[in-house]
């Protein structure tokens, strides 16, 4: 047969050209796809800052595309916690709460909207949980001294504690909603916001970070944690629960996103006197450190609520079912056995029992 319409050499040229073009196209596709991936994968920086505030260490870890913005956001978040400490601490004479403690029995004291709100919510928790959460434990915390530099070092005096309990009742606080003032109905009443202020500070610090465009962060305030967004590698933040009797070990870990994990433990501040462990979480009804628990953890999206609930779980122990409706909890009781609900069991990676 004779192919006259296309000479042989021309076929070869076309074929060469064609295969060349295909190669070039393939190559360019590879190069361009590489470029596209490179552009999509934004470099993110992970950085942390820590500061001693509210008698504990606050540590913030932030994931952001700009070092400067991340740093700035952490700085303002820590400053916000410092500001809250300067309102709520009763270990500093200059704070608003110290002024209230000194004057609220003598005359009604006008409060800033922030402190008025915080005390209002505290009293609501007290009412809701039958006084097992109470901010008037000031005289008791002073006696035990765990939050100061001089904790108790002799056997506690039962008679003295009984005396002090007379000043512990949230009903001695009267709030006036018309002019946002506070007054104490009994002389010697003292507010200690230590049980709630840290949770509030965590919530406020998270808000500051979000307002500054940071959505991936973890704040740890001495065992109470808020995790937002994801880690730098795109995975969820991992929060662990410490073994109360061996702090080197974790009894469980969980992956969390946009939520708070709050823990109360008898291992953070305690004193062993004559073989008995006295720790800093009191039962406001007895005036003594609550027995029956070593540690309690709850997972709640709002840290203020979280710190209150973890303490209640710690103090109330067996009665936890009454007030924790569907909130994941993990409790290690006085004997060291683990009690957790189904919601928590689903969240936990290790230490299932």
């Amino acid at each position: 047969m004779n192919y006259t319409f296309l000479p042989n050499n021309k076929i070869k040229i076309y074929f060469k050209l064609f295969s060349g073009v295909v190669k070039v196209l393939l190559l360019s596709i590879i190069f361009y796809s590489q470029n596209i991936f490179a552009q999509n994968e934004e470099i993110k920086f992970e950085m942390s800052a820590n500061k001693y505030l509210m008698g504990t260490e606050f540590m913030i870890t932030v994931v952001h595309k700009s070092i400067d913005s991340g740093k700035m956001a952490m700085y303002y978040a820590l400053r916000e916690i410092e500001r809250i400490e300067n309102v709520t601490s009763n270990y500093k004479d200059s704070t608003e709460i110290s002024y209230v403690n000194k004057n609220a029995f003598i005359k009604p004291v006008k409060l800033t909207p922030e402190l008025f709100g915080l005390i209002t919510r505290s009293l609501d928790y007290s009412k809701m949980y039958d006084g097992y959460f109470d901010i008037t434990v000031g005289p008791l915390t002073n006696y035990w001294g765990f939050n100061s530099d001089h904790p108790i070092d002799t056997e506690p005096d039962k008679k003295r504690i009984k005396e002090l309990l007379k000043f512990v009742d949230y009903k001695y606080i009267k709030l006036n909603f018309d002019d946002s003032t506070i007054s104490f109905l009994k002389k010697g009443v003292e507010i200690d916001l230590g049980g709630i202020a840290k949770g509030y500070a965590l919530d406020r610090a998270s808000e500051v970070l979000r307002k500054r465009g940071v959505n991936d962060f973890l704040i740890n305030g001495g065992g109470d944690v808020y995790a937002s967004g994801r880690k730098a590698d795109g995975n969820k933040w991992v929060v662990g629960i410490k073994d109360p009797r061996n702090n080197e070990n974790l009894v469980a870990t969980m992956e969390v996103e946009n939520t708070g994990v709050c823990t109360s433990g008898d291992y953070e501040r305690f004193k062993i006197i004559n073989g008995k462990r006295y720790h800093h979480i009191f039962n406001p009804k007895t005036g003594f450190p609550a027995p029956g628990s070593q540690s309690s953890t709850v997972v709640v999206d709002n840290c203020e609520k979280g710190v209150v609930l973890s303490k209640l779980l710690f103090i109330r122990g067996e009665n936890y079912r009454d007030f924790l409706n569907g909130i994941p909890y993990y409790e290690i009781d006085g004997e060291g056995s683990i009690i957790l609900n189904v919601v928590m069991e689903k969240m936990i990676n290790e230490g299932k029992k």
Partner: protein
Amino acid sequence: MDRRDFLKASGLFLAAGMIIPKVAKSMLSNRVISSENFSLEVITGNTDLAVRLLEEFATDGELGKGSINYSEYPISGDVMGDLIFVQGNELVDYTNSYDDVSLKLKEIRNKLSLPMILPNPVRLRLYRNSGSTIKKIMVAQKGKIISRIEPEDTGFYTLHGKSGKLILDVKNNYARVKDAECKHKICKQMSSIKKPGDYITCIPNELHIFAE
């Protein structure tokens, strides 16, 4: 060759011309950092400029893809400021190399007028996958680095804090608090330092001990 053939052929050359320099460039710059451990440390008195330069360097993709850790600590005392680049476990001699990364590092070093002895400088560090072996144990007080301990230097280190002494026990790439002159002794109960990222905090002494 007719006009159509010529166009096709020239198109091919054009495309090749666009790609070849890229290939050549990637062959010339032999330093590939992606996924490898690295640590880029700058001790400087000009933090703002250094942060900007490091950020540019990283976002240009010179430190590979993926997230990068950043840390910043002031150091007390007179310290030699410099730029140190460690890749894998090796110190990179970028001053005598001419690849892309080395040239850029030299430029950053020049812009920051390093090396130079600086009073109370700031140490910035970009790093990834710091690995499982401790390279340094850092002691910071009130957020300022006051001493650096080699993890191999076994012994007891006495650190002076606000409320007294703290004795740090360093042995076989492992550190823990042996004793502290404070009331609560929480630092003694805190877990020990075994790998980079671990830390011990003594609140009354305002000491923060961490491993890199």
